[in-house]
């Protein structure tokens, strides 16, 4: 099994390559791509965009197709070093879970549970309402952009000159405070120099060669922090996509990686 995996990895996989080419289904001109990716306000927005692009109704959501496209996009965002909020990965996990369910036979136990696909559709619909509303609000005239307030200088007021309390200390302390403020607007760019998805795929395969199933969190290395989570997650999705593993999520929210090849190979 290891050999198969290694051979597979040595073949220049499209997914394994850094994204120097645009996936076929992207109709956006390359120079506009960054702009488009940057314009998503979150995973829901990205998902709605993909659905719209397919020209399908939310209610007819084809999770399998959308999941693949969604993952391509987040890999692309990742490759272009966009700030990739953790929520994008959570959504990928949700999609992967729904996709896996579609393929499984429905048991009685499952029927009692809330259908995650319907839940996702409901969330998308709800989000779309506010998204549309926000676009409508954006069209309203806005002060200092579309209209301006009229004012005139006040005459000198002799006896009642408003005394304003201000001191050098105020100015100095305020400036210091501003400079010490964490720069919240700065996005955290995830740097993948030390952590490659390719490498992580291999590590995961090695782990799964030892054991059939492992929880996602057990595959993480603490010192790698958030970056590690992202890389490992992308690697897991990669493996799931190529059919090496199945991603399983039970009620505890924990994601498990289960090897597909273990039994066959042994």
């Amino acid at each position, binding site marked *: 099994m290891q050999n198969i995996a290694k051979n597979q990895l040595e073949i220049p996989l499209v997914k394994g390559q850094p994204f120097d080419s645009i996936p076929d289904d992207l109709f956006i001109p390359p120079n*506009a791509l960054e*702009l*488009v990716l940057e*314009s*998503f*306000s*979150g*995973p*829901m*927005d990205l998902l*709605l*965009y993909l*659905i*719209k692009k397919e*020209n*399908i*109704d*939310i*209610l007819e959501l084809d999770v399998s197709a959308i999941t693949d496209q969604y993952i391509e996009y987040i890999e692309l965002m990742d490759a272009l070093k966009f700030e990739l*909020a*953790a*929520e994008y990965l959570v*959504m990928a996990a949700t999609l992967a879970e729904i996709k896996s369910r579609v393929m499984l036979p429905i048991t009685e136990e499952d029927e009692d549970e809330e259908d995650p696909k319907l839940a996702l559709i409901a*969330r998308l*619909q*709800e*989000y*779309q*309402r*506010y*998204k*549309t*509303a*926000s*676009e*409508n*609000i*954006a069209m*309203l*005239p*806005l*002060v*200092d*952009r*579309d*209209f*301006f*307030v*009229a*004012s*005139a200088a*006040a005459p000198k007021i002799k006896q009642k000159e408003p005394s304003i309390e201000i001191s050098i200390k105020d100015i100095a302390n305020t400036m210091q405070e501003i400079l010490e403020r964490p720069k*919240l*607007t700065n996005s955290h760019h995830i740097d993948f120099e030390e952590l490659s998805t390719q490498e992580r795929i291999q590590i995961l395969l090695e782990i799964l060669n030892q054991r059939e199933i492992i929880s996602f969190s057990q595959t993480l290395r603490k010192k790698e922090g958030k970056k590690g989570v992202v890389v490992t997650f992308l690697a897991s999705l990669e493996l799931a996509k190529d059919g090496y593993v199945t991603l399983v999520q039970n009620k505890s929210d924990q994601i498990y990686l289960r090897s597909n090849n273990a039994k066959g190979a042994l």
Partner: protein
Amino acid sequence: MKNKIINTVEALLLGAGRPMKLSEIRSILEASGILVELSDIKRAINDLEVRHSGSSMEVVEVSSGYRLKVKDDFSESLSHLWSEKNARLSKALLEIISIIAYKQPVTRGDIEEIRGVHVSTNSIRSLLEREWIQVSGFRDTPGRPALYKTTKKFLDDLNLKNISMLPKLPEVIQEKDLYSEVV
């Protein structure tokens, strides 16, 4: 006398540079020794409208009262003056303020649930800074999260008189997707 009232109201609106309520104008006039009814002030405002029909300004009523604004015909010239990416609102910020506007009062968690993404402290700070939102209380759940609602200033800045003048929140769409184009 009548002209004095009109001019004083005009002077107050020009000097304040913000909307003023009829009652506020009346109490200032009173303090200056001019005793009038609210209806007199309303009439003075109507007279101001007539006075400025040919000028570059107009009186408008918004959420916090009456104010003088430059007529829209001159917005283009003024935008050259206040150049720089004026008051540009990000998509995220617009979504956040919309959720607050239509669902108020809401916590940050409520907004995150709808948008499916973290709401940054900076977004909230930015809206508080614009005085578009304010804390209206705290929800009685663990952590006692702050509840946000929109302010009169939010409506003023969109030149609206009240919240019901915002475009209607769309219903859940069952038919063909109306999701509008990205970018």
